[in-house]
């Protein structure tokens, strides 16, 4: 029998039926998820996987995916830590509006993000920038498309992180001789490292799966703007289902690995957390 919070209390027949119904409803979803992945795995063979990995186009897509996701993650953290801190700790004018705006990419259809970026770079300032740095249909557009969405998740994660960290230690640091910036760097920043890891993993995984905005804003040109999600689409559209599934499995494995890293490191650092009083 499952262990429950405040466990060891004896269960009556009614209690058992209650948990059985909950378990059944939740279990169906979990089963569906697992069945989906098992079907993927059963569809492909090591030979297909190997062939996919040998293809130069797919190798390029893997490299571009790794590079763009990592750059996007760094950029997202660079923005999310200060913005999350400001939103959590300060009450500047217009804060509620900023809070609303940074949530927009989370609720917006991804395709619309791509279309909006495309339009933005058709405006006069956008075209002026393109003269110095080609963005649309080039590699920077991949990173920008990923960043617009991933950063919103990173900001939300960092904001929640700072919300959950008491401001008291920072106040104590002020009385101990720190300015605001020292209190941030010496106290809040190290205490938020677990949240930063979570934000980075989320941003990375989110960027890896980004497709809609990249298709619209970057195109799907082989050896140029093709990332792994584009590969799945391209292979699928030419009827090469084996390669599409093989690349999908590669992405599943990477995403699961990211999840494990997050859980494992998250737990390790949790041991260093203060008791909640």
């Amino acid at each position, binding site marked *: 029998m499952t262990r429950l919070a405040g466990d060891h209390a004896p269960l009556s027949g009614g209690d058992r039926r209650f948990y059985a119904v909950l378990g059944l409803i939740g279990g169906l979803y979990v089963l569906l998820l697992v069945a989906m992945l098992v079907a993927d795995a059963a569809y492909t063979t090591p030979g297909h996987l190997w062939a996919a990995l040998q293809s130069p186009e797919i190798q390029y897509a893997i490299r571009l995916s790794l590079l763009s996701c990592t750059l996007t993650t760094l950029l997202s953290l660079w923005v999310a830590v200060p913005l999350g801190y400001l939103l959590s700790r300060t009450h500047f004018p217009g804060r509620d509006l900023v809070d609303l705006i940074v949530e927009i990419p989370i609720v917006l259809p991804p395709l619309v993000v791509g279309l909006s970026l495309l339009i933005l770079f058709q405006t006069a300032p956008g075209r002026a920038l393109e003269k110095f740095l080609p963005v649309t249909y080039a590699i920077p557009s991949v990173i920008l498309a990923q960043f617009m969405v991933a950063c919103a998740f990173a900001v939300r994660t960092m904001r929640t992180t700072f919300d959950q960290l008491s401001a008291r230690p920072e106040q104590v*640091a002020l009385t*101990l001789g720190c300015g605001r910036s020292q209190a941030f760097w010496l106290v809040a920043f190290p205490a938020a490292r677990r949240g930063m890891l979570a934000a980075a993993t989320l941003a990375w995984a989110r960027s890896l799966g980004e497709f809609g905005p990249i298709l619209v804003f970057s195109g799907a040109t082989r050896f140029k703007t093709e990332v792994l999600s584009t590969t799945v689409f391209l292979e699928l559209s030419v009827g090469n289902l084996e390669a599409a599934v093989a690349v999908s499995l590669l992405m599943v494995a990477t995403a699961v690995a990211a999840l494990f890293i997050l859980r494992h490191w998250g737990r390790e650092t949790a041991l260093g957390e203060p008791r909640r009083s």
Partner: protein
Amino acid sequence: MIAVEQLQISAGAFALNGISFALPAGSYGVLMGRTGVGKTTLLEAICGLRRVHGGRIRLGEDNVTDWPPARRNIGFVPQDAALFPHLKVREQIGFSLAVRKQSTEAIRQRVEEVAGWLGITPLLERPIAGLSGGEAQRVALGRALAFQPRALCLDEPLSALDQDTRESMCELLESVQSRTGVTVLHITHNRAEAERLADCVLDLRDGQLEVRHA
């Protein structure tokens, strides 16, 4: 000396108006009053963590009303100790000295001296996870004392402790004060604790402060 003159603070739903008192240098003041009456707010204002809307706060001869907290040199021990989650006990206590860029040797000496007073020398190399409530309060007290503050503000430092630990912390506070001669302002609900420690009891009721000397 801590002196507060006609202080006005508003915080959320309530406001404190025209609060005045003076704690002579080296005395032990105890601030009492019911929950939500504004004791912590007053303490935060003295430490510089809350903006005041009128009146003055003086430390000795200095009018510190508009000074940032760092410049006031007040040791602050909040109710939940608020230790820094990522630092060992030694680093907590030496924090203010490291911020003041003192030498490693000077910091080591001072940390060990303060830890000796507080009976926490065996804890110095420990992380703060796993410290008991009483130990955490001692570390927070050590952290607030290390830079030789001109005043010490304690927000219910004994409220979360069991009876025995509370007794030993009371003795510790008495010995620390007689050793350092620092002016103390200490918030408590506990009348016995107040009578035992206080030279001066400040009773905050309905926004008014009543001062009684022991």
